[in-house]
């Protein structure tokens, strides 16, 4: 145990935690959105994220970026970064929509049990992981450095690195955009209506299928953005990446109160920071154990998460 490290590097760790938390928050939005509408954990969401990281990787290759190259500068850099971001968001968004069609739609229309639906989603998740394991030969892949990583300034001994600042700000913007979309747009309102009460929304003329597709698309795109930010900061990925981040992101969603967008945001940041602190104190090996204990503890004290579920109480 190393409490001295936590004390000495406190602000630096907090900053790193915020960047990690931003990524968690973006992924957890997908869990929360789908849960709100379908009352199901989208088990394949972690693979939606995984595919985002590989798409960003492929996009960078297409843009001609190579591992041995020097980082790009100026508008060329911005352009390359944007292309990678868009590629990841598109790929993840489309994957999420396909997941819904393949794993969920038919079962939902047949009124299958939750368990059957879950197994179907697990099947998709296993297949995607295995597909990428075979494609990548079980090896991790490195992401080239597109952007030079520099320290912008130091605060209380913490060096603030530019890529992490970008991640935090960009994630904030994404979430703001999503929030606007949910509250203002027609489909966003549909999502909220279905989350509240599916049968009444159907009666009121909401097209459930379309709403569900849009929900998966939105959640997938957020996961794609997270994938890009992840790969930008950590510069590598593998077929397993979804598994580890998925569990943490789901934990974040539950922590904040699943089905609640603000909760996902908050849970993401809290978990990101806590994980960074605990890795510093106990070593990275115990990080997962501690997140798990935090999750159980929160659920024990407040079963609906810190912010409470926005979903209505079940009616009898």
């Amino acid at each position, binding site marked *: 145990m190393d409490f001295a490290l936590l004390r000495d590097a406190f602000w630096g760790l907090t900053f790193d935690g915020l960047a990690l938390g931003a990524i968690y928050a973006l992924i957890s939005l997908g869990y929360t959105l789908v849960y709100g509408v379908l009352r*199901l954990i989208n088990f394949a969401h972690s693979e939606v994220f995984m595919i985002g990281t590989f798409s960003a990787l492929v996009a960078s290759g297409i843009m001609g970026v190579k591992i041995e190259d020097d980082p790009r500068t100026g508008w060329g850099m911005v352009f390359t970064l944007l292309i990678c971001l868009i590629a990841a968001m598109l790929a993840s968004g489309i994957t999420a929509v396909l997941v819904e069609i393949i794993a969920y739609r038919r079962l939902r229309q047949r009124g299958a049990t939750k*368990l*059957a639906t879950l*197994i179907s989603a*697990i*099947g998709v998740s296993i297949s995607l992981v295995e*597909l990428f394991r075979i494609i990548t030969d079980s090896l991790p892949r490195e992401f080239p450095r597109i952007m030079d990583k520099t320290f912008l300034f130091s605060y209380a001994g913490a060096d603030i690195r530019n890529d992490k600042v970008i991640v935090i700000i960009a994630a904030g913007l994404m979430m703001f955009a999503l929030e606007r979309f949910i509250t203002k747009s027609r489909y966003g309102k549909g999502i909220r209506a279905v989350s509240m009460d599916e049968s009444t929304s159907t009666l009121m003329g909401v097209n459930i299928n379309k709403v569900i597709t849009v929900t998966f698309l939105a959640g997938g795109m957020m996961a794609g953005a997270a994938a890009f930010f992840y790969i930008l900061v950590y510069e590598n990925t593998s077929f397993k990446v979804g598994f580890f981040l998925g569990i943490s992101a789901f934990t974040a969603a*539950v922590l904040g109160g699943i089905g609640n967008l603000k909760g996902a945001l908050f849970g993401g940041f809290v978990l990101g920071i806590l994980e960074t602190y605990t890795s510093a104190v106990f070593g990275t*090996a115990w990080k997962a154990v501690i997140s798990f204990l935090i999750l159980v503890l929160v659920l024990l004290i407040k079963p609906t998460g810190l912010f409470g579920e926005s979903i209505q109480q079940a009616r009898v």
Partner: protein
Amino acid sequence: MADKKFRYNLRDHAADYWERSPKWRRVSLSISFIAFFYALPFLNNPLINTPGSDFQSVLFYPVGMYVLMAIGLNIVVGKSGLLDLGYVAFFAIGAYTMAILGTHTSLNFWEILPIGIALAMVSGVLLGTPTLRLRGDYLAIVTLGFGEIVRIVAVNIEAIGGPRGIAGIPTPPDLFKAKFTILDPKPYYWVLLTFTLLIIWMVRRMAARRPGRAWDAIRQDDDVAQLMGVNTLKYKVWAFVLGAAVAGAGGVLYASQILSIVPDQFNLNVSILILACVVFGGIGNLWGVILGAALLAFTPERIRFLSQPRILVFGIALVVMMNLRPDGILPKKKREHFDPNWKTVEESGEGEIK
């Protein structure tokens, strides 16, 4: 309103035959059935032989072990409808108990067995009591986390071998004439089969009595079950703990046969695979689950040539299967009994109540 007609199929015929059989016939059928399974290792049939691996070993692991674990998990998932994605944790706890006590103390297999079962049950209570209050979806993620945690803890504690695990686990002492050695999997298989039969017997007893009704009620409608006076938390914890006990017993036996264990054997895939056995066979139907587990554990051994994309094929099969037969190959289906003497509704309120 039209009532459902009898649907005659092979399964109903079999069930009818069983129900109409006199006791002596049921007993002799059961005995020959059981005898067949005890004799299975001696069978040398090209249809079921596993060319790439030793058939007798395959019978013990994975086939027999998966059947046992699927029966255990079925109490949790099939009977009570609780999604446990970390079932492997209890298997690991049993295996580690055997490994640690077997290598550090003079206790033998038969003495360690109850300890392993008890430890698995205690961890079931510790994990279940707080988390089983939660709604089903949370339970899935918490159990998934737990399964991973047990493995991570094992990897990170050097005292129990860390990532290298534990080697030199003793075999059970001789029992009657049977010698337990690494070379001969048959005695292990027989012990496993005996466990399995015992557990089938217990599960069937419970299913027909109050616990079975409570689990049925919980699975179908937790809210209403509570309102009908079922202490749902208590019965959920029981389901969880019984499932843990079965996996714990399996783990102890497994470790004593395999002689050395490493944490990575107890990964999430095992939990998922056992769950797949349950769902694939027919959630909640004991015979379906047994069939599903036997098929899913045996087929990969039979088709070893498909080794690389095996899991991919498995994943796709799960999706296809769930889309086509969401209730599994041998779905749970209650047979109904009809009384031909119809009565009209106006006659309600007859008889007396206290």
